[in-house]
């Protein structure tokens, strides 16, 4: 989450960690509901891309270790 850029990070921290609804997030960040929905949606896509990239780097390393032992 820290690797995400604002304003997507704040939206997802409030969504996942604080478990707020989109309406509550819109009130907290003082932005329209449609904007928050867009930020949650785009933020998730970015997060997923980062996790996929991380997994694809981590997997061969883990596999390599397994082979050596």
């Amino acid at each position, binding site marked *: *989450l820290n690797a995400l850029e604002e304003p997507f990070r704040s939206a997802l921290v409030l*969504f*996942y*960690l*604080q*478990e707020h*609804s*989109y309406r509550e997030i819109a009130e907290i960040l003082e932005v329209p*509901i449609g904007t*928050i*929905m*867009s930020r*949650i*949606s785009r933020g*998730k896509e970015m*997060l*997923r891309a980062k996790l996929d990239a991380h997994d694809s780097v981590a997997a061969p390393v883990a596999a390599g270790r397994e082979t050596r032992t």
Partner: protein
Amino acid sequence: MNTQEAKEILAAFRPGTDDEQDPIFAEALQMARTNSELKAWWNDSLVFDKRMRRDLRRVIAPAPVREAILAGQFTGGLAKLSAEQFARIVLAYEPVWAIGTGKTATPGMAAAAHSFLRGQVAAHFGSPAAEECRILYGGSVNPGNCAALMEEDELDGALVGGASLDPNSFAAIVKC
């Protein structure tokens, strides 16, 4: 509504919450039941959300993040009170992950949060108010952990939830 718009709306949906009665999701949810592409995306999205919530619960937030959350809650809930009103307040710190879960903050974690909150009281209402303010710890307090928690000077008492429903358990906590 096209598929992309439905995805954007569904991304904000939280199953098992008030969102299920929120009309803003109704059309997108209906589409997710009938549109096979959207249905597949939606199932995948639910799995991703579940994984994220599970994994993030395992991460202990860094101190600056915890302090930012506490400062925001303090300012939002209490900073507008007058000094006279605040003098009648008893503060309770209760980590959200410790409410009814059986998980308790360690005495050190609780003391650090209380110390930070006392600093917030000092900043908003002055040092005398901070010294006099009682800050209770809540979140799965029970007879087994109460004594260790209460050894911390920063903890002025306990906010007892589920353990108060059993008279013997509550009595044991009172005696701590």
